[in-house]
C-alpha cells in the first residue's frame, strides 16, 4: 500500500479546509472594508488600509486571547443546534435565580455556586430536550422547533425576571440589569489565573470549560453512548435497524447540547462581575448563535472547539478594536463569521478539491 503523504492525511485536510474558510471570511471582510473606504470619502483609503490591517492582525494577536477565554467558555455546543440561544437563556435564568436567591449567610458561597451551576445546566438540558423530543416523536423539523423555543425562552426569561426581585436597583445608571452575582458573594474562583494573565478577566471558568470539552471528547469517541449518538446522526434508520433506540438518542443528544450551552451561560454569568440585561424578548443573545461557526470550524470535534472558540474571541476583539480605532464598526466581524459559516457549508467540496490538488502533486513525484 502506498503511504499517504502528510498533506493527504484526512485530519490535515479538514484543518486545511477550515483554514481556507477562515481565510476567505477574512478576505471578504477586507474587501468590504476597502470598498466602503473607496466609496465613502469620510473614511478614505488610508483608513481602509488600517481596517484591513486590524482584521488580519486579529489572526495573530494571541496576547489578547486570555481575556477572550472567559467568553469562549460559552461556545461549546458541538452539535448543529440552532436552539443554543434559548438554552443559554434558560441556563442564565436558573443559575442567576439560584445564585441570587439563596442568601449567602445561610449557605457557603461555593456550595451556592455549585448548586447554581448544576441547576442552570440541568435547565438548559431540559430546554434542549423539548425540540429533541418534538423531532424524535412528532417529526417536527428541529430547526423550526429550536427557533420557536428560542423565542419562547426569550419571552419567558424577560417575564420571570420582570416579576422577580433580582433587578439591579442599587446602581441607578444601570436600568434593566440583574444584580451581579458578586452581590451575593458568589463568584467563580480565580485559581491564580488572574495573576498569570495580568489585566484580564480570566477565571476558573476556562479550566472547567476545557475539562468539559475533554469529557465530551471521551464520551463521544470512547463510549457506547457516544457511538450510538454518532450512529443516529449518520443514519437514523440504519441505527434503528441495528437496535439503537433512535428516538431516545435524539432527545439525549439535544439534551446534552442544551446542557453545554447552559453550562457556558452559567460559567459566564456566575463569574461574579458580568451583568445580565434581562429585557431580552426582542432579541436573542448572539453568543448562542456563535456556537454554530465555532462547531463548524472545529469540524464538530470537542477539543478543536476550544481553539476555534479562542479564534472567534480574537475576531470579536479585533472587531471592537476596529470600532475604537477606525470609522468602521464591530458588525464587520459578524459578516466575516457568517461568510465562514457559508464556506463551511460546502467544506466537503473544498476537501474534495484539496484531494484533487494534492493528489496531482503526489502523482508528479512518482
Amino acid at each position, binding site marked *: 500500500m502506498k503511504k499517504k503523504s502528510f498533506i493527504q492525511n484526512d485530519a490535515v485536510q479538514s484543518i486545511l479546509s477550515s483554514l481556507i474558510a477562515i481565510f476567505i471570511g477574512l478576505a471578504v471582510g477586507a474587501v468590504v472594508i476597502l470598498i466602503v473606504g473607496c466609496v465613502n470619502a469620510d473614511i478614505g483609503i488610508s483608513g481602509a488600509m488600517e481596517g484591513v490591517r486590524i482584521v488580519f492582525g486579529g489572526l495573530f494577536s494571541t496576547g489578547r486571547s486570555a481575556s477572550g477565554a472567559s467568553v469562549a467558555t460559552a461556545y461549546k455546543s458541538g452539535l448543529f443546534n440552532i436552539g443554543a440561544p434559548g438554552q443559554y437563556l434558560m441556563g442564565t435564568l436558573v443559575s442567576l435565580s439560584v445564585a441570587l436567591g439563596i442568601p449567602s449567610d445561610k449557605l457557603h458561597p461555593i456550595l451556592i455556586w455549585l448548586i447554581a451551576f448544576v441547576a442552570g445546566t440541568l435547565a438548559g438540558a431540559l430546554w434542549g430536550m423539548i425540540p429533541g423530543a418534538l423531532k424524535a416523536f412528532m417529526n417536527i423539523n428541529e430547526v423550526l422547533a429550536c427557533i420557536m423555543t428560542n423565542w419562547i425562552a426569550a419571552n419567558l426569561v424577560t*417575564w420571570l425576571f420582570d416579576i422577580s426581585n433580582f433587578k439591579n436597583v442599587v446602581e441607578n445608571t444601570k436600568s434593566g440589569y440583574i444584580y451581579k452575582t458578586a452581590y451575593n458573594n458568589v463568584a467563580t474562583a480565580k485559581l491564580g489565573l488572574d495573576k498569570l494573565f495580568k489585566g484580564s478577566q480570566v477565571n476558573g471558568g476556562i479550566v472547567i470549560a476545557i475539562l468539559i470539552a475533554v469529557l465530551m471528547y471521551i464520551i463521544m469517541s470512547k463510549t457506547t453512548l457516544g457511538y450510538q449518538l454518532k450512529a443516529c446522526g449518520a443514519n437514523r434508520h440504519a441505527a434503528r435497524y441495528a437496535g439503537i433506540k433512535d428516538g431516545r438518542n435524539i432527545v439525549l443528544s439535544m439534551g446534552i447540547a442544551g446542557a453545554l450551552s447552559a453550562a457556558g451561560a452559567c460559567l459566564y454569568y456566575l463569574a461574579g462581575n458580568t451583568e445580565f440585561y434581562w429585557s431580552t424578548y426582542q432579541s436573542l443573545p448572539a453568543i448562542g448563535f456563535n456556537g454554530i461557526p465555532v462547531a463548524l470550524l472545529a469540524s464538530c470535534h470537542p477539543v478543536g472547539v476550544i481553539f476555534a472558540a479562542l479564534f472567534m474571541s480574537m475576531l470579536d476583539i479585533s472587531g471592537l478594536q476596529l470600532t475604537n480605532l477606525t470609522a468602521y464598526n464591530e458588525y464587520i466581524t459578524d459578516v466575516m463569521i*457568517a461568510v465562514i459559516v*457559508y464556506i463551511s457549508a460546502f467544506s466537503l467540496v473544498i476537501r474534495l478539491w484539496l484531494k484533487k490538488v494534492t493528489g496531482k502533486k503526489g502523482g508528479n513525484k512518482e
Partner: protein
Amino acid sequence: MTYLVQQTLLYAIPLMIVALAGVFAERSGIINLALEGIMIFGAFMGVLFVRMMQSTYWIEYASSHKGYGTMQLLEILTMLFAGLCGAIFSLLLSFASINLKADQTIGGTALNMMAPAFVLFFIRIIANQNTLQMLSGDSASMFMIKKTTLGFSKNDDLGFLGNTFLHKVYLATYLCIIIYVVLSVILYKTKFGLRLRSCGENPQAADSLGINVYKMRYTGTTISGALAGMGGFVYSMTTANCTSNGDVAGFGFLALAVMIFGNWKPLNIAGASILFGLFKCIAAGYSSIDINGDGIYLLADIGVSAHLYRMLPYVITLLVLAFTSKNSRAPKAEGIPYDKGKR
C-alpha cells in the same frame, strides 16, 4: 372590530407572501431556511431606496403637494426593488446548494447570520445608529391610503366594509394578495408549475423527461428570494414604520411554520397566515383591541402579563406543528442535492 381586521391583515400579508416564497423553494427541492435573512435584507434595501428617493426632486415635490399617486408609485417601485435585491441575495443560497451541493440548512443559517450583520454594518456607516429611518415623515403619512386620499371627505361614513378595506390601508396589502393568487395559479395550474413541482418530488424522473433540474431549482429559489425580499419590505413599511434595524422578529421562521401548517398548499397557507396574523396582532396590541366596540378592552382587563401575549404566537406555532407534522406532506426530494448519477 375594524381595527382587529386591519391589524391582523397587516401581520398576515407579509407572513402569507413569505410562506409562498418558502413553497416555491421547497417545491423545487431546496429548503429555504434563509427566508428570515432575505426578509431582513429586502427590508433594508427597501428602506434605503425610499430614503434615497426622498431626496430627489419629484418625491420632495409630491410630498409637499399631496401627490398621493406619486407616493403609491414609489411604494410599488420600492416593492419591486426590494424583491430584486432579495432575489439577488438568494442566489448565494442557490449557488451553494445547487452547484456546490452544500448542506442547505447550514447554508440558510449562514445567510440568516450574514443578512443582519451586513445590514447593521451599513446602517451604522450610513446613519451612525442602529436603525435606518426615512429621511423625513413617517410611513403612515406617506404611503397609507385614507378616506381623503380616495376623494371622500373626512366625515363620510363608508360603512363597515368601506371603513375596513378602504380607510387606513396600504396598497401593498392588495398587491400582495394579487401576487399571491397569480403565483399560486402559476404553480398549480400551468406547465411550468408542474415541472417545478416535479423537481421537488422526483428530480431524476423529471430529468429523464428533459427538464433541466438545476435551472428549475434556480428559478424556484430566485422567485422565493424575490417574494421574501418584497415581504420583508412590506413588513417593515406596514408594521415597523418603514425602518430597518437588522431584525424582522422571527417572521421568516414563522412563515416557514405557516407553510408546514398549511401543508404546502396555497389556500391552507392563506388560512394559516390569517390565524397567525391574528395571534401576532393580539400580541402587539392586546391592550387596545376593542372586539365588539363597547369601549371595554377585554384582553387588557383579564390582567394577564404582556409577556404571555408576546410568547403566544411561538407557543401556538409549536403546538400546531406538533399536531400537524405527523401527516404533513412535504415535497419528497426537498433538502437533497440533485445528483445526476444517483437513482
